[in-house]
């Protein structure tokens, strides 16, 4: 909060309070969490840049066309998109104070997230089985780093989701829990935004090469 003070023309001394007045708990959480997300965004930007630079260096190994299955990626994308809207429903029911409905939507969100991770791990296992390991070429190193980092974020989001469901189950939709659910909401939707970049830049444009 800023208090505007007119410039002093009279030369009178101006006093400011040295200590800030007390703030309610969690008043700055959403801004702080947003700044964390932005720093995470920079991490992904660097991984995208790395993939952009190294993505065409196949070292005579498999290229995107040999490895990617767009049908699978489309299913994966829809899983993440559906989990985004169900998390939105969880937030709406949370605002109405309906604990049971909130928990149900959170559980559905978690299942979609789990399906996403499952499909991604199946894809990775399939690629590694065919010899397309992260060690094979610069393209695959940067691919696994970028997509793996995103998958790791989703996995940690799932752990966080289960933690918050336990919190809500034990303490209900208290203000602190609402704040936590709001942070996870921002995190979850942010991961969906990153995935838009992944499926466009890595998968779709990889198939165009």
């Amino acid at each position, binding site marked *: 909060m800023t208090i505007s003070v007119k410039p002093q023309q009279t030369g009178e001394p101006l006093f400011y309070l040295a200590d800030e007045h007390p703030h309610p708990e969690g008043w700055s959480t*959403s801004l702080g969490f947003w700044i964390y997300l932005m720093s995470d965004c920079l991490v992904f930007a660097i991984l995208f840049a*790395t993939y952009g630079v190294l993505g065409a260096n196949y070292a005579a190994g498999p290229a995107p066309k040999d490895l990617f299955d767009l049908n699978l990626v489309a299913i994966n994308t829809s899983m993440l*998109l559906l989990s*985004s809207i169900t998390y939105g429903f969880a937030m709406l029911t949370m605002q109405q104070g309906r604990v049971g409905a909130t928990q149900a939507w959170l559980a559905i969100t978690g299942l979609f997230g789990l399906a996403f991770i499952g499909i991604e791990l199946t894809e990775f296992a399939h690629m590694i089985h065919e010899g397309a390991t992260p060690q094979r070429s610069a393209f695959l190193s940067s691919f696994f780093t970028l997509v793996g980092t995103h998958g790791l974020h989703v996995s940690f989001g799932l752990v966080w989701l289960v933690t918050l469901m336990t919190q809500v189950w034990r303490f209900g939709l208290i203000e602190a829990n*609402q704040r936590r659910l709001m942070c996870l909401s921002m995190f979850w939707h942010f991961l969906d935004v990153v995935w838009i970049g992944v499926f466009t830049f890595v998968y779709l444009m990889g198939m165009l090469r």
Partner: protein
Amino acid sequence: MNTDTHAAAAAHHHPDQHAHGSLSTYLLGFILSVALTAVPFWLVMSGELGNKQVTALVIMGFAVVQIVVHMVYFLHMNTASENGWTMMALIFTIVMVVIALSGSLWVMHHLTTNMMPIHEMSGMK
């Protein structure tokens, strides 16, 4: 929550006063996202546009639009929340991301085109 009440609430922050969506905005965002995801996939899988370069540019355009849709309808970005500081942080991040991405690609592209292949270099001695 409209901007007027938000500006009034901004005087003293409270987690409850964070911008929330409604059922209709979530559903609108979802429908837009589905369309903006399905079209690029269809364009690449069917090869409808023929030209690969044009297809790449078009799907990048779709991605940018979808990111904005997610920001507005799911992340509830607006210029008023937290007295504009979230928007400030976002703009700063976008500038950094653009510099990092375009700078890396530009520099490394020139490096690749200007570096001589190894077999030509061996003939120079």
